[in-house]
């Protein structure tokens, strides 16, 4: 396997993504909304308005969430006032699964652009006539999707951490974020979700002719992330460190299975026949 080939393919795909506004614009807009504007609104609006904290804290759903909360998560809330507790609950716990939208979304955008997009623009045939192996082509394209998906997620995490600590400095008077549960989420589940999104998109791209078709179909994978969010809000699945590690493991196992299927589907002859 020639690493230079893999890196060249990844670099070329990333260069193409950079030139395609439809592909990179969501990678800027979505994180800006979710990691800057939303937390700022949650932190700043209550301080400058007379919103009653009691309504939030005494909400029956929240009471149920708090009642079922594992000790490790509840311990973080001890000794905090109502406003601090609200911020920790909302921004530290309930928003956490939402972060998984980033790797899933970015992975599917770039993979759809790289696999289905190349076929749609009829550039694939020239690439297949190069002295590269199927494996090099596949890994180059996977790398092109994995780097921005995980990279933008991690950069978003750093920004989120800065926003929460800087905007919340006058409330917490100390660095309060990231919470322990986030480490598994960011460094274990995020790459797993990105991989899952990429391999699923490769499989979908083998059957769909256009970038938009592949992207729209693979976007339905966001339902997994929504499942995590509902699970946590309803008190069924709390993303503790242990649960995070376990969830990550399950996603990695599914990713590996999908990787094997995706590699099988990525063969020169079938790619050209399917492309017509």
């Amino acid at each position, binding site marked *: 396997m*020639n690493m230079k*080939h893999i890196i*060249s393919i990844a670099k*070329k795909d990333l260069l*193409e993504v950079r030139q395609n506004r439809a592909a990179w614009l969501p990678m800027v807009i979505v994180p800006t909304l979710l990691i800057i504007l939303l937390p700022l609104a949650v932190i700043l609006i209550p301080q400058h308005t007379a919103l009653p904290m009691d309504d939030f804290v005494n909400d029956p759903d929240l009471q149920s969430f708090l009642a079922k909360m594992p000790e490790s998560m509840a311990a973080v809330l001890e000794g905090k006032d109502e406003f601090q507790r609200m911020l920790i609950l909302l921004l530290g716990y309930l928003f956490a699964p939402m972060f998984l939208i980033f790797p899933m979304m970015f992975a599917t955008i770039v993979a759809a652009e790289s696999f289905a997009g190349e076929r749609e623009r*009829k550039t694939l*045939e*020239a690439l297949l006539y*190069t002295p590269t192996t199927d494996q090099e082509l596949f890994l180059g394209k996977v790398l092109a999707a994995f780097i921005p998906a995980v990279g933008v997620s991690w950069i978003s995490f750093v920004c989120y951490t800065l926003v929460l600590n800087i905007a919340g400095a006058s409330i917490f008077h100390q660095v309060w974020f990231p919470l322990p549960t986030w480490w598994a989420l960011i460094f274990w589940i995020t790459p797993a979700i990105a991989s899952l999104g990429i391999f699923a998109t490769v499989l979908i791209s083998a059957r769909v002719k256009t970038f938009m078709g592949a992207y729209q179909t693979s976007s339905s994978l966001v339902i997994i992330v929504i499942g995590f969010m509902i699970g946590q809000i309803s008190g069924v699945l709390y993303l503790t460190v242990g649960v995070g590690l376990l969830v990550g493991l399950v996603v990695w196992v599914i990713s590996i299975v999908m990787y094997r299927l995706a590699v099988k589907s990525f063969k020169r*002859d079938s790619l050209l026949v399917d492309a017509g």
Partner: protein
Amino acid sequence: MDSIITITNLIHHYGTHTALNDISFSVNRGEVLGLLGPNGAGKTTTIRLINGIFSPSSGSISILGMNPALQGEQIRRQTGVLTETPALYERLTARQNLDFFGTLADLPTPERHARINDLFSFFQLAERADDRVETFSKGMKQRLALARAALHFPQILFLDEPTAGLDPESANQVHEMILTARKKNGQTTILCTHNLHEAQRLCDRLAIMKKGQILAIGSLDQLRQQFSPGINLQVRLEQPLSMDVRGTIRKLNGVLRVEEAHSNLCELLIETESIIPDIAKHLVQYGARILALTPRKAGLEQIYFHLQNNGTAGAV
């Protein structure tokens, strides 16, 4: 002759459709072989099989002594392919396109950069080298795609419809470039085309294909010998020829056929050009006033349509 590609009893199926049905031919080092035929004849499939993109259903291919089904990567190092569509990355510049393909061909960086600049000069693209390909005309894209095919000094060049959709000026420019590149590097070239004029101009030998089969293969002269022996001689006269004179001319040695195309125009099929003075002499003897005598060998177009319409051998 030194054969660089040998194809024996090659069959290829796409599902239930037979794309190639038992074809055999060889390509000699340094020659330009034209694959002619309508859409669906199997020209592009042949290129894909030779380059190891597909594995054949049965039969064998040897290219540069290698088997494409097993040694695709090594073969693609030695071949350059111009695909039917330019297949360029339109959002990237011309230089980025060539640099990417040069890297995949493992050209070392300084050599790659020098080669790319040489190709830009040769294909008259130097001034637009750093512009995005999406801003290029069709002819410029085709020239850039040709540059990409030739980038890694391939021993064998495959050109699939190199002038399809180009205006006559651009097509002529591409022809000149192919001829110059061949003269300079002595490359073996396989040219797939619908354009018979292009094939006649560029190819040493021609393989005429239909529905996955090769109907005939050889140089234009060999194809003429096989399918259209003789020379058409057009005789333009001041007055129509009488039946008697036509009968006399028909009896001359070497005259195969005499037909009256219309009143003042007579078409003869003769064996060789050497009997043309005899024919002229006889016509003058019989009082005919000759305005013009035009010998014409059967063109590729005549042979091609004969084969496509009749399937196989038989005089045109």
